[in-house]
């Protein structure tokens, strides 16, 4: 994974090369283009979120004549039916619960899968990959949830998200466990550790870097998930933030400013994570991707 995170220049700096001017030109052009293509949409969201309803409806890329960001934020938080506060709580519970389960369960699998050569490993690897590729069958999953009395419950939704994230996490953990010397396990065993203490006391703490990566990547994924809660957790009292956004879009055509305030709000958590943990997130996304 370190090879991914190490963002060293691919080509050594070519000093005294006539390409210096060209490099500057390309750089400036790239920065301008990236600003227009990648940043303008986000600036647009911010501007829309600060406008009055009438101005927001014009969809212009203009500064608001009267900055109302604060009022809009208050309006979004106070609007009773849409319940953004409740939605944030729901999203937080869902994210924390499912990521916790995912991390513990898949660390256990990735560890034993890597350490213990066995007849069944091939089969397990096959199912892990199937879990990445095969789209979940929607209505039959609802049928299972209903059979277990878990349909429309947060508990059921947490288990579903945890299940759908297992494959990705197992691959990351298995690859990382391979980098921990087996001699360490043997030393711990000689010191009298049993299987449980060996894993939870010795190996798990060593997995910290990959755990951080998995937690970050999967938190973003679960927090942003729209389709699964749409199917498996219907009902306004259960709505996650993505659901409120979608509901907002369908109801309030006349309140585009509040809609974009909502968009702004749900963009902030990933942005904060990205600012603080860019390296780990990128490592997880690419190495996870690399395994996919």
């Amino acid at each position, binding site marked *: 994974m370190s090879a991914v995170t190490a963002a060293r220049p691919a080509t050594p700096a070519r000093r005294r090369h006539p390409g210096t001017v060209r490099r500057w030109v390309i750089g400036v052009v790239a*920065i301008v283009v990236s600003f227009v293509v990648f940043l303008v949409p986000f600036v647009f969201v911010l501007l829309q979120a600060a406008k009055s309803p009438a101005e927001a409806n014009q969809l212009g890329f203009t500064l608001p004549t009267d900055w109302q960001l604060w009022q809009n934020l208050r309006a979004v938080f106070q609007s009773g039916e849409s319940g953004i506060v409740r939605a944030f709580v729901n999203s937080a519970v869902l994210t924390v619960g499912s990521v916790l389960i995912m991390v513990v369960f898949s660390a256990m*699998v990735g560890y034993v899968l890597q350490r213990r050569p066995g007849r069944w490993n091939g089969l397990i690897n096959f199912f892990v990959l199937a879990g990445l590729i095969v789209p979940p069958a929607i209505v039959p999953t609802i*049928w299972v949830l209903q059979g277990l009395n878990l349909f429309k419950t947060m508990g059921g939704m947490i288990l579903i998200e945890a299940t759908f994230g297992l494959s990705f996490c197992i691959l990351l953990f298995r690859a990382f466990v*391979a980098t921990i010397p087996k001699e360490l396990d043997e030393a711990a065993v000689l010191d009298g550790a049993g299987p449980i203490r060996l894993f939870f006391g010795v190996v798990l703490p060593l997995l910290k870097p990959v755990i951080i990566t998995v937690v970050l990547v999967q938190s973003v994924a679960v927090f942003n998930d729209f389709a699964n809660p749409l199917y498996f957790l219907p009902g306004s009292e259960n709505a996650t933030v993505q659901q409120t956004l979608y509901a907002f879009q369908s109801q309030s055509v006349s309140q585009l400013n509040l809609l974009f305030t909502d968009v702004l709000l749900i963009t902030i958590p990933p942005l904060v*994570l990205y600012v603080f943990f860019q390296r780990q997130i990128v490592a997880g996304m690419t190495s996870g991707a690399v395994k996919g």
Partner: protein
Amino acid sequence: MTATLTTAVAPPQTTKAGPGPARSRMRSFYPAWFFIPAIALYVVFFAVPTFAGFWFALTRWTLFDQTFIGFDNFVRFFQDPQLVSGFVHTFEYGFVTSAAKVVLGLALALLLTSPVLGRGYLRAVVFFPVLVSTIGIGITFKALLDPFHGIVNGILGSVGLPTPGWLTDPALALWSVAAVDVWKGVGIATLIFIAGIVAIPQEYFEAARVDGASAWTIFRNITLPLSRPAMGTVIILSLIGGLRSFDLIWAMTGGGPGFTSDVIASVIYKQYQAGFYGLSTAGNVVLFVVVTAIMVPVSWLLNRKEPEL
């Protein structure tokens, strides 16, 4: 399918020691029951629904009672023009977004591995959309692409270019959504290509430069062939995402206008909403078949020269 396990970067060193007596004694310290919690979740919430789906796809189903109707759901799926168009769009959408991500991702990775000005900033902004809510992005671009007030048409109109209804023109809607999909997803493709290019030993580039190779020759004969594992990863990943994609289409067009931007995933949702659970599940089976039928040969082709992990 294990063949998909290629790495864009060198795989971590596996400790491969022979099964000596100490090793076999260690076996009992890696208990098999560690698999059980994960297997339980996987079987109950993933495997059982998937296999049950093959049965329910053959029924008229209300969740409470079911009538076996043979292949009627599938016949309907491939006769009803709106369902067939969803089927075709899935392929178009998957292949176009995947191809665009490969080309743009490689181009951006080449730019961002060269000593270009503001490289850190560029990497950060290209990647950030990957982390943002798909629904949020859909809503934002729906406003930006608005035929009358949207910024995109505002700019196009001001320089005298045509201003089409990006999301309202039946011929364009699917492709507009695909373009936004590429915008959101190109960051991850770029990063995977960067990882692949950075892993190429510097000696190759230096030797080629000493021999007087042009930038194009270096790209064609060193960078491109040696970043093949990364390319395989990008293709596989973006195809899986593209063929299954639902959120963005649903947020931007809802499958419309008409059903001109429907894909299998949105058909599944629509039939579910309408209460045709059997038909919806048949759609799931079709999607399953489409995804596996494409992914198995593609990953085999892309990985056949790579060692398996």
